């Protein structure tokens, strides 16, 4: 036993002279590190109540509860998370998966109490001393990517190849691509309130994710009888509020609907028993117009046992939505697959019947109820000086009579005026027919009402976009026509809403062309309604005003779709049909 071993422990006394490591806590504060996982805060304005924090919390410490002052809206469930600090383990999984990144930790850690029942609070609603701390564990989605993930990329035709022909641009998902994409859904249900028809979106996405495509199709048909059409051309209001869209890309709900329908040759035998006519109850209903709204009303009425007769001007069902949209977006042969379901459901179709006063008065006497779903027939005129020249044609009529089968436009120069879906379709159809196209629109590109995927694809296809151009007049020249316009600058609108385009200067720019298509929208002509009915109904700007169950107020007449004021897209028309069915059932009970 060496002598030094006895002495060396006493050298520890040298420590007494040195600086002490103590942090005298209450006098000298010791704040948590910048990333410290302290107590919760939540920005209730950014929070959309999607419930992801509640599902990921393994201790069931978070409950979604109603909070007064926050009510449900489109894209916000109105619920806010309550955190129970008798369960929480401060693991921050809820922070990393928060869709909008509103939930976060502060770096304060000191909370002592005598009463254990006060340990539950709603961050952001109940006032807490650490509410405005900047430091703390915050979400970092581009490192982890839990809060929002990119979409499964679908195989899309290259711009060069797709402008030669009219085959479908978007090829659709493979099976495991679709199942992976559907598995991204977090079942928060915000899309249900955004979809006009309130489809059971989380349920059918879960069905697709688990490979149960038959259940998915059955869930479509519960409140949307045209799922394949909606799968290709819907305006996707659900995807705008999708919780995954805040930090990543929203779930491709539209393409997944299309995928599920394309898995089956015939939807009719998939639905089999679901699509049988109900036992007849002796009542007859007439539906005028075989567009989305008319078809959806006819389908559910016939399944409720009503005898349904559908009248339409065209030779086949599907209405304007089906024929105005060109082949590369919505192939026409798809309609027969959809119409089979209606025939199986017992709907009787009468094609080639133009809507006239005599037809309506005849229907009024013969049928217990009539549903007007005639939509808008007349393209509205562009109100530009010189639009009566023969080369200036409305885009709507051009698209209606199957332009892809018509004559080629190679070497011609075409001008399209307008910014909606019809303008996009007209421009891209002319490109496919060999013309080079100039598109003129009064406002900015982001103000265009067309679908942003459409605009993006159109831009890739050698179309010369000219936003912020105000038309002046159209003149005839020897070789064709000349279109003159002003360059515009955006002036914000005194009454709020979108900024207005005002001519920047009075310089007149000119573009020569052979044909000009105006796609400013459609209006309706209501001459076909007899005077007696017109007095009974409320009409405003050519639209029929209806109450919430689509009742026009005149006898047993209901109306829906584009003829009534509203969004004017296919899914709203289908939703109108659904409400009309409920209205008819209640009225004819």
């Amino acid at each position, binding site marked *: *036993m*060496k002598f*030094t*071993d*006895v002495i*060396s*422990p006493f*050298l*520890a006394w*040298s*420590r007494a002279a040195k600086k002490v*490591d103590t942090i005298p806590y209450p006098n000298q504060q010791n704040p*948590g*590190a*910048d*990333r*410290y*996982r302290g107590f919760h805060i939540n920005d209730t304005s950014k929070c959309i109540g999607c419930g*992801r924090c509640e*599902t*990921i919390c*393994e201790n069931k410490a978070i409950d979604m509860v109603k909070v007064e002052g926050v009510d449900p809206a489109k894209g916000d469930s109105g619920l806010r998370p309550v955190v129970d600090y008798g369960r929480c*383990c*401060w*693991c*921050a*999984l809820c922070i*990393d*998966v928060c869709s909008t990144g509103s939930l976060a*930790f502060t770096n304060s850690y000191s909370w002592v109490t005598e009463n254990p029942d006060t340990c539950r609070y709603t961050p952001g609603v109940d006032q807490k001393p650490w509410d405005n701390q900047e430091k703390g*564990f915050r979400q*970092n989605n581009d*490192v*982890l*990517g*839990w809060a929002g*993930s990119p979409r499964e990329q679908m195989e899309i035709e290259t711009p060069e190849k797709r402008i030669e022909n009219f085959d479908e641009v978007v090829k659709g998902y493979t099976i495991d691509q679709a199942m*992976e994409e559907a*598995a*991204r*859904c*977090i*079942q928060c249900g915000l899309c249900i309130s955004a979809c006009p028809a309130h489809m059971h979106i989380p349920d059918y996405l879960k069905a697709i*994710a688990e490979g149960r495509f038959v259940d998915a199709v059955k869930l479509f048909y519960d409140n949307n009888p045209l799922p394949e059409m909606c799968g290709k051309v819907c305006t996707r209001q659900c995807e705008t509020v999708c919780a995954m869209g805040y930090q990543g890309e929203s779930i491709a709900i539209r393409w997944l609907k299309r995928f599920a329908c394309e898995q089956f040759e015939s939807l009719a035998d998939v639905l089999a028993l679901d699509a049988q006519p109900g036992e007849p109850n002796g009542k007859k209903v007439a539906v005028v117009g075989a567009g989305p709204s008319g078809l959806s009303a006819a389908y559910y009425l016939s399944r409720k046992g009503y005898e349904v007769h559908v009248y339409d001007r065209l030779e086949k069902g599907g209405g304007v939505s089906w024929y105005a949209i060109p082949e590369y977006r919505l192939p026409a042969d798809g309609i027969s697959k959809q119409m089979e379901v209606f025939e199986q459901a017992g709907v009787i179709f009468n094609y080639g019947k133009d809507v006239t006063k005599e037809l309506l008065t005849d229907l009024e006497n013969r049928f217990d109820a009539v549903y007007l779903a005639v939509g808008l027939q007349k393209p509205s005129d562009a109100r530009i000086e010189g639009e009566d020249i023969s080369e200036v044609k409305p885009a709507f009529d051009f698209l209606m009579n199957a332009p892809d089968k018509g004559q080629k436009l190679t070497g011609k120069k075409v001008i399209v005026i307008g910014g909606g879906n019809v303008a996009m379709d007209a421009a891209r159809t002319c490109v496919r027919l060999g013309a080079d196209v100039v598109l003129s629109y009064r406002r900015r590109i982001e103000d265009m009402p067309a679908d942003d995927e459409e605009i993006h694809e159109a831009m890739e296809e050698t179309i010369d976009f000219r936003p912020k151009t105000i038309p002046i007049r159209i003149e005839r020249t020897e070789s064709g026509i000349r279109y003159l316009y002003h360059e515009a600058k955006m002036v914000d609108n005194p009454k709020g809403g979108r900024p207005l385009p005002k001519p920047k200067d009075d310089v007149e720019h000119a573009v020569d062309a052979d044909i000009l298509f105006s796609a400013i929208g459609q209006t309706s002509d209501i001459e076909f309604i007899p005077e007696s009915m017109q007095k009974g109904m409320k009409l405003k700007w050519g639209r029929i005003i209806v109450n919430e169950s689509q009742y026009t107020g005149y006898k047993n007449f209901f109306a829906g779709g584009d003829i009534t004021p509203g969004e004017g897209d296919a899914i709203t028309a289908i939703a109108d049909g659904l409400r009309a069915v409920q209205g008819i059932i209640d009225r004819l009970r």
Partner: protein
Amino acid sequence: MGVNPATDPKKTTHLFFGPQHPGVTGNMSVEMWFDGDQITKAITHVGYLHRGFEKLMEKRLWIQNFPLVCRICVPEPDINEECYAMAIEELTGIEVPERAKWIRTLVLELARLAVNLMAFGGQGGTLGLGTAAMWGITFRDFVLDLFEELTGARIYHIYIQPGGVRRDLPQGFGGRVEKVLEKIEKRLPELDRLVLNNAIFKLRTQNVGVVKPEWIEEYGLVGPVARGSGSVRDVRKDAPYEIYSKLEFDVVTESGNDIFARVMVRRREMDLSISLIRQILSKMPQGPVATKLPNLTEWRVPAGEVYSRVESSRGEYGYYVVSDGSLKPRRVHVRGPSYVHAVPLLERMLVGANIADVSNIMVSLTTCPPEIER
């Protein structure tokens, strides 16, 4: 049938040691019979911290188990996250980016340093050397401040995730780690003088609590307990995981077979950890730190079984993870080194030892009761 002489009430006294006893590491108790002050028979009782982790893990999604998993061993939680993450990556085939591997190794080595500091001081503490315990835990606190800055929590970091780590290193983190290492290196010699060249410490630890080399293979001993008796088993060398194959180091081993040898192994492991941390910080590559995972609430790990191994401060630490392809694990079995050290080995070593050395031997095995009972 004759009375067992070891527990014959006329000759031996029966006593419980723990679970409420300052000398016990954590919550464990030893039921002892002894004749005079020589122990004739000992039975370890565990179960005081049993929370049924493995049952709870079968009820939670794969990602939800991370906060649970790191609570299994309190002094060193990161090895659990690492083991569990490696098992999932093995089953799913998820790739871990290069930088994430370096950061994971950094976290593991920092955690090893912190535990060894506490264990080194704690060994002195059980012999009445309170100052050594105080200093050990104070030095460990400097390392915990680094963890707080890196992961957001002092003890339970929940930082290692399947596919990498949750956040990148904060700005200037390497410099601060270097400063803490220097501070510890400057003050470790003081701790050595107080503990290692301390006459009483030597008297109380040399050829006390002897672990015979042939017991290593018989009981499956690992870590400092085995390396104190000449074994060279170290998972970082035998089955290198993460980036240990890229670091130069050799296995620390002693052949004294007694408590002093085990303490020396832990002391030299601290220097090894410090040199490893410096190597890691100097060669840390740039790049992403996490691969993107699918939607966590719908994440299914393909069916399969795997036994992933990590070198913890107490030895080889294994996770036997079984997945049946569903959203939740079918079975997760945690195999900690303290299982064989504290139950069969301790019961054998205590026979013949005297009462004063019971907590001394127990602390020298650095048993961590939650690892035994999970």
